[in-house]
Each structure stands twice: as structure tokens, then as C-alpha cells.
């Protein structure tokens, strides 16, 4: 079967990609700006074609716990929400990290804190990358910058989630979720007929009972488990870093930005170069694991780094750690649901940083 070219919103692409990736279940709750994911799936009614279960839960808390139940059975299950709803899911997410359950969680980020706005933002970086819920854990965090990546990262997310038995978050934003672009959709994959050995499927004769839990009363045994997680996260750091470079070969000024900000910065690099400023862009595609080594390498040859985020400056902390003080690191950000223009990024670089 051939790939198919469609014009879709990012949210719709996530939904269609989930069906085509052979997902077994989706559990969600409406919240702007991501409700199209649930709406699309309800309309597509994949239960009648692939057998994929789609259910609207009574809350984000219930939805993530339905995901927990399905994931515990070894099924490919996912949920999606936007910032306030993702906060509600944090309990379930940390339990899943603690029980080592695979799943895909999509966050179509909007401005915060609190109820905030419904416009695109990147203010949930800390929550997604540094934990969000309680306890020492990491999600694998993928940051799409196009509708194509919204679609592609669903399948990639499931692959990584099952490879590492770890929840995966697709950290998108209201712009990527709402905008329409052409997208190449993968052919329909069949739903898996087998489940991993750890899954609760009803205990057959001859195997020990499978228990999905994150509970341990003995601190020494808990520490052994914590160390096991550290080993896993280090393996993820070693194997799964993904990033993309634009015009970095001769760059003197390096921008670091992900998602929507990276698209803005790509244009800003072109505008800056037209004015004789040798700018480049590194776009992290994985936020955990963070592309520290590539940024550290580029820090050897650039004069400074400018991080551009739709936040008060969150990813900048990981950039600072990556460069170890080799070059100055500046932040330019818009907040509250405001998307920066390429011109203001260039202006900031030119007048405030280089000229300042």
C-alpha cells in the first residue's frame, strides 16, 4: 500500500496517524486547542475497521488511567490533551513511568499558567522534560515542528515507548495542532496480535502472575529500581537524540529553538543572512534526550547562542548546561500565546545582543 498525501490539521494528522500506526486504543477528554483529535477519531470510528477503541472519558484523570489499564495489557494506547489537562494527567503519567508502561501522550500546548489562553505556547517545557509528576523519572519527549512530524511521531512514539517501556510525550503547541499542511500518511499497519511478556492478559498456566505496579515498601529495593531507571534513561540519552541543523556550517550566531519557534527561527536565519549576519539554527527534535553534544560542539565555533522559546525561558537551562559556559547564551521569548515573528527575532539578535 502506498503512502497517501492529504491536507490536514496537525491534530487531525495525529488522529489519522494513530489509526494507521495500528493503535489499539485512544482515551481523551475535550480541551482547546486539541479537541479535533478526539473528534476526528470519533468520526473515523476505527473500531469498525481496525478494531481501535476510542472512548471519551469523564476527565483527563480518568483518560490517563484508562491508558494505564490498556498499556498494562501490553496494548498500544494513547491520550491527548492541552496544558491544563496535561497537568491533571501528571498523576497517571508518573504512575506509568513507575510501572514502566509504554504509551503516547500528546500535549498541544497553550499559554499558562492556570487556565491561561488557548493560543500556542511552549510554557510546558519544564513539565514535559523535567518530570511533571512526582518522583525521579523522565518521559521521552518529541517536539514536532510540522503537521508531517505530528503524524510521523505517533508511530515513532509507540516504537520508542515499547522499546524502552516508557511513556512518550509529543510536545506540540496550538499552532502545530491547528494549522493545515500537506502530510504524507503511512500505509495502514495492522494492530499487533501479540503482546509483551510482562502484560496482564490473564495468567496462563506455567507463567508467574504479571503485576503492574509502582509500589515498593523497602527503600533499598526501591533504590535498585530507581537505578534501573537511571540506566534506562542513560541508554535513551545515548541512542535516541534527534536534532536538525540549518546553516550551521559557517554560523557565528547560533539559534536553538524547537517546534513552532524553530519554524520562526528558520525564517529568521534567512533574513539575518540577507543582512550579512551569519546565523544558524539547531532544532532539537527530542527534548528528552536533549541534544547536548551537538550544541556543545557548535558552541566551540559560534560567538553566542540565542534560544528562542514561546516561554519565559525554560529550554535555555538545558542549553546552558550543554555549552558549559563556552559562549554566552541569550533568551528571546514571547509568552501567553503570542508567536514571535522572524523580524523581531532578527531585530533582537542584531540590536540587543550583537549591538548591545
Amino acid at each position, binding site marked *: 500500500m502506498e503512502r497517501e498525501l492529504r491536507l490536514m490539521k496537525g491534530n487531525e494528522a495525529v488522529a489519522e496517524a494513530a489509526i494507521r500506526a495500528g493503535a*489499539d*486504543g485512544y*482515551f481523551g477528554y475535550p480541551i482547546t486547542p486539541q479537541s479535533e483529535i478526539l473528534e476526528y477519531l470519533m468520526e473515523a470510528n476505527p473500531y469498525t475497521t481496525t478494531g481501535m*477503541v476510542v*472512548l471519551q*472519558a*469523564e*476527565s483527563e*484523570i*480518568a*483518560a490517563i*488511567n*484508562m*491508558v*494505564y*489499564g*490498556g*498499556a*498494562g*495489557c501490553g*496494548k498500544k*494506547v494513547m491520550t491527548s490533551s492541552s496544558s491544563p489537562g496535561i497537568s491533571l494527567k501528571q*498523576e*497517571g503519567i508518573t*504512575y506509568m513511568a513507575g*510501572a514502566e508502561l509504554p504509551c503516547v501522550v500528546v500535549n498541544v500546548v497553550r499559554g499558562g499558567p492556570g487556565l491561561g489562553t488557548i493560543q500556542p505556547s511552549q510554557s510546558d517545557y519544564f513539565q514535559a522534560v523535567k518530570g511533571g509528576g512526582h518522583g525521579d523519572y523522565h518521559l521521552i519527549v518529541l517536539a514536532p515542528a510540522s503537521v508531517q512530524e505530528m503524524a510521523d511521531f505517533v508511530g515513532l512514539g509507540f516504537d520508542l515507548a515499547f522499546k524502552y517501556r516508557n511513556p512518550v510525550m509529543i510536545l506540540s503547541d496550538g499552532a502545530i495542532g491547528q494549522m493545515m499542511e500537506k502530510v504524507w500518511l503511512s500505509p495502514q499497519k495492522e494492530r499487533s496480535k501479540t503482546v509483551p511478556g510482562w502484560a*496482564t*492478559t*490473564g*495468567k*496462563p*498456566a506455567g507463567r508467574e*502472575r*504479571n*503485576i*503492574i*505496579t*509502582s*509500589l515498593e515498601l523497602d527503600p533499598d529495593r526501591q533504590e535498585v529500581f530507581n537505578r534501573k531507571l537511571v540506566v534506562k534513561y542513560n541508554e535513551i540519552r545515548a541512542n535516541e537524540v534527534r536534532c536538525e541543523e540549518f546553516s550551521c556550517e559557517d554560523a557565528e550566531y547560533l539559534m536553538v529553538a524547537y517546534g513552532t519557534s524553530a519554524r520562526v527561527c528558520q525564517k529568521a536565519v534567512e533574513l539575518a543572512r540577507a543582512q550579512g549576519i551569519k546565523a544558524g539554527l539547531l532544532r532539537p527534535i527530542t527534548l528528552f534526550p536533549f541534544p547536548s553534544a551537538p550544541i556543545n560542539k557548535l558552541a566551540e565555533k559560534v560567538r553566542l547562542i540565542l534560544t528562542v522559546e514561546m516561554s519565559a525561558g525554560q529550554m535555555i537551562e538545558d542549553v546552558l548546561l550543554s555549552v558549559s559556559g563556552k559562549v554566552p547564551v541569550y533568551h528571546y521569548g514571547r509568552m501567553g500565546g503570542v508567536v514571535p515573528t522572524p523580524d523581531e527575532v532578527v531585530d533582537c539578535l542584531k540590536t540587543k545582543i550583537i549591538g548591545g
Partner: protein
Amino acid sequence: MKEITGMKEIIKPENLVYKKSELLTENIMHYCPGCGHSTTHRILAEVLEEEGLRHDAIGVSPVGCSVFLYNYIDIDWQEAAHGRAPAVATGIKRLMPEKFVFTYQGDGDLAAIGTSETIHSCNRGENIMIIFINNGIYGMTGGQMAPTTLPGMKSSTSPYGRDVSIMGNPLKMTDIVATLPGTYYVTRQSVHTPVNVRRTKRAIRKAVQYQKLNKGTCFIEIVSNCPSGWKMTPVQSNKWMEENMFPFYPLGDLKTPEEQPAN
């Protein structure tokens, strides 16, 4: 030695009147003496064994005294976050509809922090069994007031007795879920006497059979004691339960399939 040999002659299949369920593991239960949890675990294991579900049951254990239920019954288990068991069970049953899926929850778990999950899973008519142990107290955390604590009843967070004008009234969750169209069988039982144990076992067996019909949620409340939390001996606690809990939480069926309109 002769006596032991004699015992072996007596212990023969034809003389057997009772044996431990094969589904009960060798782990020693951590419950306080006289607690209803261990009895309920035993009859649950017996029903699962007798109904041939040892390879087809997936249980969801709660947060509370029965958090380690998965150590005692030899089936596959998922441990849910506090109150979330019905949502976890929903995820399991929707994706594994051919399996027997159930939750086992206490009153704090089911009727306080998990109120939303309980009501909505019952209202959707999820084809699961919910076993609800109501002892009117938070046992594991040391005897705090529960949503089901009786008016005037003392606990570590209502040391002068539950003052309903300040702390609100006890919640009769079982009465609430019985009104929901999604529930198929709702009953309130106890396990403090042999006859009540038999009735509860029968209720669990009915819930197992009803789940096969895909008609909706089966909800079994078991009014139970908490000798440690109530600061009583097991015998005193059972008496207190009969005199105080049962008038407020009367035993019996609240909803049976026979009473439902045929469809």
C-alpha cells in the same frame, strides 16, 4: 508419628469438606486479626477458581489496606492510583473484553478520591465487577475519617465524633450507583458470620456470571469492620458493626437483574 499417619488416612478426597483455594498464594496476609479483608480475599479466590477464571481474570487493586491484594491471589493484576481503579479497569475491559475484569476498593478509594471514576464507570455500564469494602474509616493511613464514617463516629481526624454540620454526612455510594442505568446488579453484603460469607460469595458468583452477559456494572458493597481503626477487639467490632453500621448501611440487594425491564 502414628497420629500423623492417622491424619493422613483421614485426609482423603472423599472426606474433604473444605480446602484452601489453589488461587490463594502462600504469602501471609498482612491484615489485622479479625479484619474482613482476608475473608473477602478468600471467597474471591474461591469464586475465581470455581468459575474457571484463573487464566482469564485481571484484577485491579486499590490504594488502601488491600493495596497488596496482588500478593495473595494468583492471577494477573494491575495496581491503580488512589481512586482510579474503575478507570484502569475500563481501559483493561475495553481492550480485553473477553477477560473477567474487576476492582477491589475501600471506602476512601471508591467513595472519596475516586467518586468521579466510580460514578462514571458505573454510568457507562462498564462490564466490570466492583467490590467495595466499607469499613467507615481510612485503615492503612491510621484511622482517619472516611466519606462513609457514621455521624458521631470517632476517628483520628474526627476525634470528637463526626460532626455532620461541619464535616458533612456519610456518602451512600451504593445507593447512588444503584440509581444509574449502567449498573446491572448492586448489592450490599457482609462477611462477619458464616451465613453472610455464603451470601457474599453467592453475590460475587452472580457478578461473575452477569459479566459474561455484557449487561453492565456489578457492584458489591461489603460492610466490614476495622478492629484496629475502631480500637476494638474483633468480636466487639463485629457487634458494633451490626448495631451501628447495618442500620445506616442495610444489607441486601439494591438492584437485581430480575427487577430491570426486559430488553
